[in-house]
């Protein structure tokens, strides 16, 4: 299985794939934006301000998903000493970080017209802010440690610390009284969001996922070039 992780094979993919991903992203993103901003209906209660949801919710999902992936890859990479997994994690982190900021900022903009406040220290919002701090810790760790073995250990510990926060974010709205509303989309039970609003949401999620993939491929490509140029620093 590990022979598919050969740098040369990966490099031939990562250097060619971004332009196709970019094209696909532009198509899906345009469809998503038209659906979300023009075609989808307004909400019965929030009217047009509901449209912020189509950016806010996908951004939150993606940033949680990326953090979970980073943790998974780091832990597996640490246990089995697979250096490549750490490079994948490192390349994934920036887009997760950016989407975390997007989630907090759009949430704040959405909070003003609906709740009547920009910010509230409730469990959901605070735990999301803590996730952002973990993203910062993670990214900074890669900058300050030169020793590869050390940076692998440190980032693994940071992700383990951070991953405990992820279920707290998910269930904060069920466990405690929060200002933030509970989840509208449930896999097991019926979703409390109308189908005409669910489609744009899913298209936007696909668009954001493609954007993360694009940034990831570009970042990962750079990492591979660095390794090629150094020569010594094998995977």
């Amino acid at each position, binding site marked *: 299985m590990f022979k598919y992780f050969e740098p040369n094979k990966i490099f031939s993919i990562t250097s060619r794939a971004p332009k196709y991903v970019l094209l696909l992203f532009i198509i899906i993103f345009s469809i998503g934006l038209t659906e979300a901003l023009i075609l989808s209906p307004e909400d019965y209660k929030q009217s047009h301000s509901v449209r912020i949801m189509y950016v806010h919710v996908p951004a939150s999902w993606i940033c949680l998903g990326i953090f979970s992936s980073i943790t998974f890859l780091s832990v597996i990479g640490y246990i089995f000493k697979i250096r490549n997994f750490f490079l994948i994690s490192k390349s994934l982190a920036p887009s997760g970080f950016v989407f975390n900021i997007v989630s907090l900022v759009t949430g704040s903009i959405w909070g003003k017209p609906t709740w009547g406040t920009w910010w509230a220290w409730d*469990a959901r919002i605070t735990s999301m802010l803590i996730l952002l701090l973990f993203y910062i810790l993670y990214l900074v760790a890669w900058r300050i440690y030169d020793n590869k073995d050390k940076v692998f250990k440190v980032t693994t510990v940071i992700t383990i610390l951070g991953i405990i926060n992820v279920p707290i974010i998910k269930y904060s709205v069920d466990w405690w009284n929060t200002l933030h509303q509970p989840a*509208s989309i449930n896999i097991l039970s019926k979703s409390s969001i109308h189908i005409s609003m669910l489609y744009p949401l899913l298209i936007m999620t696909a668009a954001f996922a493609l954007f993360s993939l694009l940034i990831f491929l570009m970042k990962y490509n750079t990492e591979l070039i660095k390794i090629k140029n150094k020569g010594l620093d094998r995977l």
Partner: protein
Amino acid sequence: MYGRKVKLRFFYIFIIFLILSLTIFLTLKSLEENVIYFQSPTDVKALAEIDKKKIRIGGMVKKKSILIKEKEVKFVVTDFKNEINVIYSGLIPNLFAEGKGVVAEGFLKDKSLFLATKILAKHDENYMPPEVKAALEEK
């Protein structure tokens, strides 16, 4: 199947994870009072004594309970078990309405009267177009 070192690292990670989860769980458990954003009328009723501190209460705005007199708004917050009367003057968020969620920040006068200094609307997780809402109400 795997080497001793691999197993060792696996258990090491596992134990770190376990200890950290336990620590965070216990911390949150003991800080629960601070983690919750607001108290329900039932929580308020269960309070041993009325604090002078600023607190937040939340629940539904009882149907047909909103009274607007000049700049003052009076309404009843309910969790369908207990109720609290709220008096407030100031800006009201757009989504503040009868039968909808609300969070009020302020001071308890006594167990049935709350003087609010700020009101936040708490909206629910239901999203639908107005036509669908109208259709649902017709049923």
